[in-house]
């Protein structure tokens, strides 16, 4: 059964198409990721699904309810963490949580089992004001607040933006725990490396979805062999390879350059031979499995 079903949603702001004919489904109990840069339309999609925004056209249901007609029913069933959600800074951890519990017509005790693992981590700071918490702890508190009424579906809009690596890792661990408890999770992120942590992902750019599948499938459908190369002077190498007619694409990727060749059956030796023309010092090349970011770049090239 589908928890979320989106069909041909369009949303425009003036002349900008924020969401351009988007369709996707999220299965019950799935951890689904919307992956794309700022301005790709992720937030608009979240707002439409949480009944905060009306689409220009298209339909969407959440937990079987229509986002326009049955907005009250949806508001009872979803947990939502907006991108800029920062809680009430002047209220303590406990007060924030109690407040949201009451607003959602429940109490901390009622659904304690669900938030226990997360809440235990911030509990020592119960009487600290939310404004004085670190980014990671704020995020945990926000997640507790979004979970307090035991929602069927959790919508998390860029929950890891501006949070450090340690907190990010902990956060994804928490999401996996929640998934085990049967909660459907829709999460958005601009960080491509987080895509691998989702069951299925949609790569989204300029309001439209370029690809939907499991991360493994997306990686496997990368059309060509991908190579990573480096040299002492990486910028020179980048310029040289990019200018070479045998190289199809070449771009920086961390400490390496990633490149594809025009010929189908090229290998490391082909590239070494090409590079040799330019005499780079400390040259290395290896064939690699593409990352989601490579796929994203490839798909953007197709658009």
């Amino acid at each position: 059964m589908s928890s979320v079903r989106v069909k041909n949603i369009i949303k425009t702001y003036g002349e900008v198409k924020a969401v351009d004919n988007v369709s996707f489904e999220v299965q019950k109990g799935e951890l689904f990721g919307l992956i794309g840069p700022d301005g790709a339309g992720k937030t608009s999609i979240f707002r439409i699904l949480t009944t905060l925004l009306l689409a220009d056209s298209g339909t969407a249901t959440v937990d079987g309810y229509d986002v326009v007609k049955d907005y009250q029913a949806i508001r009872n069933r979803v947990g939502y963490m907006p991108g800029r959600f920062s809680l009430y800074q002047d209220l303590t951890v406990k007060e924030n949580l109690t407040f949201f519990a009451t607003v959602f017509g429940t109490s901390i005790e009622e659904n304690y089992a669900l938030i226990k693992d997360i809440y235990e981590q911030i509990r020592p700071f119960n009487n600290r004001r939310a404004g004085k918490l670190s980014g990671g702890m704020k995020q945990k508190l926000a997640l507790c607040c979004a979970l307090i009424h035991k929602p069927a579906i959790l919508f998390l809009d860029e929950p890891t933006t501006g949070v450090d690596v340690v907190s990010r890792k902990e956060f994804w661990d928490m999401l996996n725990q929640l998934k085990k408890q049967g909660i459907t999770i829709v999460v958005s992120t601009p960080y491509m490396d987080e895509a691998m942590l989702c069951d299925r992902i949609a790569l989204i750019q300029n309001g439209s979805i370029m690809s939907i599948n499991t991360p493994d499938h997306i990686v496997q459908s990368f059309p060509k062999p991908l190579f990573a190369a480096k040299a002492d002077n990486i910028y020179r190498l980048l310029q040289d390879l990019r200018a070479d007619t045998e190289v199809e694409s070449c771009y920086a990727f961390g400490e390496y350059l990633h490149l594809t060749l025009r010929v189908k059956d090229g290998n490391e030796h082909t590239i070494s031979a090409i590079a040799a023309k330019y005499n780079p010092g400390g040259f290395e090349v290896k064939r690699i499995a593409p990352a989601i970011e490579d796929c994203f770049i490839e798909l953007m090239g197709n658009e």
Partner: protein
Amino acid sequence: MEDNQSPSTVGRQSSTKEKAIVCKNLTKQFGDFKAVNNISFDVDQGEIFGFLGANGAGKTTAMRILCGLSYPTSGEAMVAGFDVYRQQEKIKKNIGYMSQKFSLYDNLTVLENIEFYGGIYGVQGAEIKTRSNDLVSTLGLEKEAKKLVGELPLGWKQKLAFSVAIFHRPKIVFLDEPTGGVDPVTRRQFWDMIYEAAANGITVFVTTHYMDEAEYCNRISVMVDGCVNAMDTPANLKKQFNAHSMDEVFYELARSAKRTGD
């Protein structure tokens, strides 16, 4: 007279290469709290140096000192050959700064922004004109030159912001989480620009807590609780920590952090 003793002699002793930044036992203390605790490192001219750390590790405090915005409590540091205690104004003239949050004025046009920053860094009027025309054509912004910056897409804004930060040809440019939020292609274009700047001899000092951004740097230092706990190339760090990515390296280092918060 001390204004004239540039470039520094401290850097030359330690290496044949020109040093853009030299830090020795730098400490900044607020009461009992050592925000920056006895850190030492060098950055070469033309190097892309990643300055990493979790929130609250002391990155911002250290960077403020290096930008000439705050005095250290003890230790020494030379930036672009100038002393952070006595030559703050000279430092400010010789560095550029770009952050993701503050960069350009949305309600000024592209050209007006360039002219404004060129002006405050003392670039001459005629020079501003030729350089800004060059800049606009290099960025391919000819059509948008008279448009308000607020109307540009985020990626273009970032590229423009970086160009503006190095418009006065500083020796060092400080970048604060420069590529967050943009699409992967724009991000590559941005890194191309950074590589180019470095190839032209500008030292690039990147602070970030995103590790994929860090992997582009020549060398990385990781700050934990006010101290620099690791410093090497990304490849060596990964080897040292037996990790696949900088994410894992950082996780290993930062996990033990006592401090939290901003």
